[in-house]
């Protein structure tokens, strides 16, 4: 019966979606906003990657909301999972576990880890020039640090975990404050909130596009710190239960 109702629900939903998408004027002229942005983004903001100009300049407030959503999700996961009283599983039956310190994995990671960090920071710093930006680079940095934990598992004491969480919290709060402070400074100096206000510089060089690179660095650090603390929280519970 539940399968039948699921089928009815899915068919109704797909019918609705098909009807709606058939009537939407997707990619038909007049695309006023899209055409305006394509024509004016380079002169307005001084970026060569137009997506960045949309994300940070034309729709900067939406990016702030996106950061708030990510922050809420990360803090919710932390709140749920740091409750260590009722998350104790039964001791595992010690079946097959991946070997903890594999020579090949460990040394491959020693090669890969700095490479991943460089790629992550490159993607963040060049967000206004090439595809990519703060969100993507932050995720790359977070997964670099987490791969480090996965490949070299060690029993860390509670104080170490505590200090790691504190450092991540400081990085995340500082970058969030930086993002909003840049927006407020634009507001005080007579522009709109989050409007880019420094000089554009030479088109295509690293120090160009006004405040957009700084905003993207703040976004990248915030996303990286948030996701690493989320993954560390998940992994801590894991290692606790496996070493029981």
């Amino acid at each position, binding site marked *: 019966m539940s399968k039948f109702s699921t089928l009815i629900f899915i068919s109704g939903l797909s019918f609705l979606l098909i009807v709606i998408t058939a009537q939407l004027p997707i990619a038909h002229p007049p695309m006023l906003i899209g055409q305006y942005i394509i024509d004016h983004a380079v002169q307005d903001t001084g970026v060569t*990657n137009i*997506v960045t100009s949309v994300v940070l300049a034309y729709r900067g407030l939406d990016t702030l909301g996106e950061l708030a959503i990510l922050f809420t999700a990360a803090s919710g996961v932390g709140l749920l999972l740091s409750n260590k009283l009722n998350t104790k*599983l*039964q001791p*595992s*039956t010690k*079946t*097959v*576990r*991946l070997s903890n310190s594999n020579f090949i994995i460990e040394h491959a990671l020693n090669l890969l880890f700095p490479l991943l960090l460089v790629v992550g920071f490159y*993607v963040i710093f060049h967000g206004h020039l090439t*595809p*990519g*930006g703060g*969100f*993507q680079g932050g*995720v*790359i940095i*977070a*997964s670099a640090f*987490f791969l480090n934990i996965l490949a070299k598992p060690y029993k860390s004491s509670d104080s170490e975990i505590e200090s790691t969480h504190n450092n991540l919290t400081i990085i995340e709060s500082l970058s969030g404050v930086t993002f909003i402070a840049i927006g407020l400074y634009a507001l005080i100096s007579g522009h709109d909130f989050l409007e880019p206000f420094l000089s554009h510089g030479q088109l295509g060089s690293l120090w160009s596009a006004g405040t957009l690179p700084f905003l993207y660095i703040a976004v990248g650090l915030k996303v990286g710190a948030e*996701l690493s603390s989320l*993954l560390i929280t*998940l*992994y801590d*519970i*894991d290692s606790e*239960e*496996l070493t029981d």
Partner: protein
Amino acid sequence: MDISALIALIIVFIMLSSALCVLFLPNMIAAVMASSVISLSLTIIFALLKAPDVAMTEAAIGAGLGSLILAIGLKRLNYFNIESHQSNVSGTDPGQ
């Protein structure tokens, strides 16, 4: 036929078959790997559609972080075995 359309057709076929693999593979780790194959193929489709930003996001989040979180979930449920899923059935019920 356009060459990029041909590539896109092959990739869509790969995506559909790996989605079926996610459903029917007995080994859980292999199923997680198959789900990250879906994301990687989707990355190529985004790159063909000239959306490199979306492609990077899909590669970093869908293929990288998503499979990491799924793998942590498998480990938490004691399904993280390379050999087969049979060794869990005789043990304690996972996930309780």
